[in-house]
């Protein structure tokens, strides 16, 4: 099979994951793919992991974090997942908060983890940009604001970018790894500068605010048939809250926009790497191809593709399938089942790789790494280390 980029099939993972005998396909130990993945992360300041839900994106983000920490870098991994999966994967029973927590790992670098709190991040942004404490409080206590801070579509993606930028500037960290929201909008912050400040470009804002020579002015609701209609459907008080909010927001757009521009410059720079995560299932592949196209539209390259949960490729048996397999002898039947099982898994592995073909072509020449379906769930540091080893080879002793 011809594929773009290098292929690595991690060593077959069985039982304690420690078996390293050469029972898998020869490409298992292809050093070029390992090097390719390492090169993809070389000198990165930001790593963005994209992919649909359920492909092990959070775990992958944690594994990349572990790898960079073992290379001596100070890494913070940001997860957005409300289900606290990163906390699970990192074995943090207490869960994660908006403040980074340092993990105890045996490495020359450091590994920190944090969870995005959309509302708290938005609050921080309002406080930073408000000309006075009083104006900040007026916004923060507005009911409409409380509704949108967590719920407005796009807010989560925008705040993820904002949080990423803040952590990038934090002197405690060298690298920020971000696990994007599991939505198609995850990369919307790559659009034109104005759009990054999605919030300000929201149609409601445009509808309510009229540009005047002295800035923006809130429109008169009664004069706007559309607003009157909305008021009829949702109730006048809801609309009144919204208008009060935009009035309080007056004068803060410039600060928001400047910040948005800075975030986008970082995300478009060479210091930011995009890693696609997929699994060999049609819907996750479609989603990954969508992200690949989205990045290409913004003239950004995919740095690496990681395919999780793939069926391992087992070596071809050196013996021949017995011709007496139809025999009813117990021993022969057992051997026949072993052959059936081997062939079934081999056929699945081939089908999966064929299905991934277009995506692999899309991301060329980025390296492609295959992580076999593991025999147990990864929910602690030991599990992360094992995947790290599959992807990057044995840990180097740097100190």
């Amino acid at each position, binding site marked *: 099979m011809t594929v773009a980029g290098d292929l690595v099939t991690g060593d077959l993972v*069985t039982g304690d994951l420690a078996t390293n005998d050469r029972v898998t396909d020869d490409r298992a130990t292809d050093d070029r793919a390992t090097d390719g993945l390492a090169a993809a992360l070389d000198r990165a300041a930001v790593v963005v992991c994209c992919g649909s*839900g*359920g492909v092990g994106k959070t775990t992958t983000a944690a594994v990349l974090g572990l790898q960079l920490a073992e290379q001596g870098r100070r890494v913070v991994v940001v997860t957005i997942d409300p289900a606290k999966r990163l906390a699970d994967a990192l074995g943090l029973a207490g869960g994660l908060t908006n403040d980074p927590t340092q993990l105890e790992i045996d490495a020359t670098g450091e590994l920190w983890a944090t969870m995005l709190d959309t509302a708290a991040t938005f609050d921080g942004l309002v406080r930073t940009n408000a000309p006075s404490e009083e104006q900040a409080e007026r916004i923060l206590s507005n009911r409409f604001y409380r509704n949108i801070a967590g719920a407005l579509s796009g807010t989560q993606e925008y705040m993820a970018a904002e949080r990423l930028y803040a952590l990038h500037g934090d002197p405690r960290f060298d690298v920020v790894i971000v696990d994007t929201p599991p939505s198609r909008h995850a990369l919307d912050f790559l659009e034109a500068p104005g759009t990054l400040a999605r919030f300000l470009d929201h149609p409601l804002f445009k509808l309510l605010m009229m540009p005047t020579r002295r800035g923006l002015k809130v429109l008169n609701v009664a004069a706007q048939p559309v607003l009157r209609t*909305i008021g009829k459907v949702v*109730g006048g008080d809801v609309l009144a809250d919204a208008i009060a909010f935009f009035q309080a927001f007056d004068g803060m757009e410039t600060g928001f926009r400047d910040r948005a521009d800075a975030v986008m410059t970082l995300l478009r720079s060479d210091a930011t790497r995009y890693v696609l995560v997929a699994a060999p299932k049609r819907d996750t592949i479609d989603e990954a191809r969508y992200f690949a196209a989205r990045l290409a539209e913004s003239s950004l390259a995919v740095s690496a593709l990681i395919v999780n949960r793939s069926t391992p490729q087992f070596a071809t048996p050196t*013996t021949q399938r017995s011709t007496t397999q139809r025999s009813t002898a117990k021993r022969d039947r057992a051997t026949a089942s072993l052959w059936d099982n081997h062939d079934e*898994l081999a056929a*699945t592995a081939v089908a*999966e790789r064929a299905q991934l073909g277009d995506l692999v072509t899309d991301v060329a020449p980025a390296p492609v790494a295959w992580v076999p379906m593991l025999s147990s769930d990864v929910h602690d540091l030991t599990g992360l280390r094992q995947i790290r080893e599959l992807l990057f080879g044995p840990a180097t002793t740097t100190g």
Partner: protein
Amino acid sequence: MAGKGGVGKTTVTAVLARAAADSGLRVLAVDLDGKPTLGDLVGELPHLSLTAPDALAEYLEDHGLKRVAKRLAASGIIDVVSTAAPGIDDIVVLGKLKQLERSGDHDLVIVDGPAAGHAITFLLSARGLLDTVRGGPIRTQALDVLEMLADPARCQVVLVTVPETTPVNELVETAYALEERVGVQLGPVVVNGVDDGDDLEVAPGTDPALAAAAEFRNTRRALHRREIARLTDALAIEQIRLPHVVSSGLTADDVCILAAGLR
């Protein structure tokens, strides 16, 4: 139907729809994402794609706001309405589902719902709106939806998972949240992709490649048994188990086979 991403929620929705149709029920399968997957998987069964913008437009039309609805849709301002009152897009979808349920045209309306985390927000939208919207047609709609959600004879939530640690943990969390916060009745739990079967015996001297493949399979089966046992301990709810299918892309025919296996 609710479950986290990657557990095969859409496939399971199609299988249950097919199984219900096979048993003689008039079934309507509904997707909420506007993607063609569910429609493809249920084959010739009645299917409806129901998205929030469409539901909202229809709602506005039903309330004598046809002209405005058209203008709103054209200018993309429907998003604005849902921003001004978060949850309004969810409530119009739930309202439409309620209308389908009440129509009497179907014995069972089976909905491929939003992903697990979202399912809670989605179903809580009715309650949330009652707090923010103090009058008008939306409030009436929210009250009707709440009545449907609270009646086990009319509405139940079926949670879907795969027999792996994190998905099982999330299913249990979601189950408690749905019962406590939404107050909706839980139907059976579906465990999808179960690889069951007897352990493969590896005799000494077996070809290493065959042995490795067998060991991989046995370990996965052991994991599945362990996780199903853990789920059984954590939730005293009936389980429907669907077998693991060796395929990387299911078709409507596979769905029929899986459904037949449930009988």
